[in-house]
């Protein structure tokens, strides 16, 4: 299967999985179980890379019995999703998660609660990803670590037939994988905030899908932020459910635990530094914090801070599309995109249909990453088996610089993305004027990038992906002239029934945004069928 020359490593497989977080790892397993030969490639290391590994994903978990429980969960989520969720998609991921997660028991030691009941839904990231890697390897999947994909490869009919990348721990040697079908599971992006575990997630999967001709959906929903001690990456929220906050003068701030706590915290941070104390955390939890989330207390411990007595400064890190919900538009729970041969899973896909207009963090995102991975792996295996493909010439889809390559200050371009996507006044509390100004800035940066940056390096592809994703986000946020869920417009503070629809976006040289009319028709069709 592997043939290599000095210049390039060349592999042929049925299914190629791009990205080895939870979505990619589940996809690899299910494709292999369906009989496919599978190659999984990751920019970093499948097992530690991505946001799954550093966090503690709690899965959306409702047993099928009694059936009323699932109905209630779905009905609640449809309501809280503010018109953008789809009940049947929710049922499917609830069911798949419930069936699949316990099958990892051979590799992951699920915890038992104080009554001895096994808890499947709450897993710890590093152990979960270690287990998923072992499971993937036991299925005979070939893993290429430290092998970022740089671009997809298309067949003459436009369908996707593989990818090219670089082996960064092998002198940057090029590699190519020819595949019957490709699953993009390269995660979301935090636009390079210090969100835990997100450094390798630069939106590469969005860029590559767009280059292949796919659309994005829900890119306006990038205004999710998570608390962390200042100067740290530790965006784990549990302990903060009992936090007390103070301003610089030491006055207690009114930031009660609840749905709008992050917004209030952001407002307070706009006025000045905010400090926090965890003294109200119940004693029994304090005593067990290091065995619940071992990475949380180590930050305080290493700084010599006693979080139960001292006040420490806190900040909010942008979650972008990670605890936000935008991504590649999917036509089915199996991650089918508008491009033949290309599937997406996990944060690489839009999660609007399962999360609605609010954050999928905390439960739905993991259930989606697992289920979409399982479905997409299976669908890709099926497609690869049926395809008569091999042999034809494959065309690389990354764009050459429009006006000729020259040295581009990529770090400055990335800082430019941060400067538009992180500040609260631009991305969290939005106005049409400020979004238009952001769009202008990003357009200028994109012009520099697209005109002159060489497509051959990881850094330049990451920068292009960040810029493309930011442009879609800002353009879509500008088009949604209302407030809904994670998207807040100060100039349009209320929800507008006319916008109870998903917004698609895309385009590289020319960004476009349009309403997803197919979803409305699909809904009408179903209603007719049901009545």
């Amino acid at each position: 299967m592997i043939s290599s020359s000095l210049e390039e490593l060349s592999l042929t497989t049925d299914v190629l999985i791009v990205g080895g977080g939870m979505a990619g790892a589940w996809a690899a397993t299910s494709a292999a179980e369906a009989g496919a030969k599978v190659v999984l490639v990751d920019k970093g290391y499948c097992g530690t890379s991505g946001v799954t590994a550093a966090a503690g994903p709690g899965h959306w978990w409702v047993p099928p019995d009694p059936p009323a429980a699932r109905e209630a969960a779905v009905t609640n989520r449809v309501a809280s999703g503010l018109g953008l969720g789809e009940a049947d998609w929710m049922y499917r991921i609830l069911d798949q998660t419930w069936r699949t997660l316990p099958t990892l028991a051979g590799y992951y030691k699920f915890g038992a609660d104080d009554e001895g009941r096994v808890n499947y839904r709450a897993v710890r990231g590093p152990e979960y990803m270690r287990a998923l890697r072992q499971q993937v390897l036991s299925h005979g999947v070939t893993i290429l670590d430290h092998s970022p994909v740089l671009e997809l490869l298309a067949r003459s009919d436009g369908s996707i037939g593989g990818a090219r990348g670089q082996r960064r721990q092998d002198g940057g040697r090029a590699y190519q994988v020819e595949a019957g079908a490709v699953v993009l599971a390269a995660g979301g992006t935090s636009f390079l905030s210090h969100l835990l575990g997100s450094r390798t997630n630069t939106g590469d999967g969005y860029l590559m899908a767009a280059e292949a001709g796919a659309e994005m959906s829900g890119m306006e929903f990038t205004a999710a932020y998570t608390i962390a001690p200042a100067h740290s990456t530790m965006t784990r929220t549990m302990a903060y459910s009992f936090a007390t906050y103070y301003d610089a003068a030491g006055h207690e701030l009114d930031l009660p635990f609840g749905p709008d706590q992050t917004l209030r915290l952001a407002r307070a941070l706009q006025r000045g530094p905010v400090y926090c104390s965890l003294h109200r955390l119940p004693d029994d939890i304090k005593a067990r914090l290091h065995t619940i989330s071992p990475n949380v207390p180590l930050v305080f411990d290493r700084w010599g801070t006693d979080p139960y007595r001292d006040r420490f400064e806190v900040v909010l890190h942008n979650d972008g599309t990670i605890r936000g919900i935008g991504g590649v538009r999917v036509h089915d729970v199996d991650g089918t995109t508008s491009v033949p041969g290309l599937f997406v899973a996990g944060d690489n896909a839009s999660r609007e249909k399962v999360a609605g207009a609010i954050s999928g963090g905390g439960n739905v995102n993991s259930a989606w990453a697992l289920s979409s991975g399982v479905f997409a792996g299976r669908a890709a295996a099926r497609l690869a088996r049926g395809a008569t493909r091999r042999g034809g010439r494959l065309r690389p889809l990354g764009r050459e610089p429009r006006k000729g390559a020259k040295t581009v200050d990529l770090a400055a371009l990335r800082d430019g993305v941060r400067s538009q996507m992180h500040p609260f006044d631009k991305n969290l509390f939005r106005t049409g004027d400020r979004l238009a100004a952001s769009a202008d800035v990003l357009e200028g940066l994109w012009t520099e990038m697209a005109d002159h940056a060489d497509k051959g390096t990881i850094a330049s592809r990451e920068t292009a992906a960040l810029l493309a994703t930011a442009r879609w986000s800002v353009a879509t946020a500008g088009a949604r002239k209302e407030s809904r869920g994670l998207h807040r417009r100060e100039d349009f503070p209320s929800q507008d029934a006319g916008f109870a629809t998903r917004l698609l976006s895309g385009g590289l040289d020319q960004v476009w945004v349009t309403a997803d009319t197919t979803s409305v028709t699909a809904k009408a069709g179903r209603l007719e069928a049901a009545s």
Partner: protein
Amino acid sequence: MIELIVADRCTDCGACIEVCPANVLDAGQGGLPVLARAEDCQTCFMCELYCRADAIYVAPDCDRRVAVSEAEVLASGRLGQYRKHSGWNEWAEHYPNEQWLMETVFRRAGEAAAQTRAVRPEGLGGKE
């Protein structure tokens, strides 16, 4: 960011080089990993989990380099602390994975907040 690899403890196994998602480390002379691209470190602590020799120290600071004294770190007992509390390898039987408690904590917080709201419906005097 990763600040220290204690040469005396390191067995040159190479695990940290392989698992670091941000490709921060290179094998140096004789195998001892060197912090080749420390500025790329994403402060995820993964290398510490995979270092069975407890030779790595990652400072929690993600946006600034900090001076770290090897003697102090060795004396502090913090090397290997994350791996230990995570119950990895030889610690499996000593430190249970209690991640399942998380939802209980959120539930209790919700109940406590609801109670506070009931007692003090005006919040803290509208200070925000």
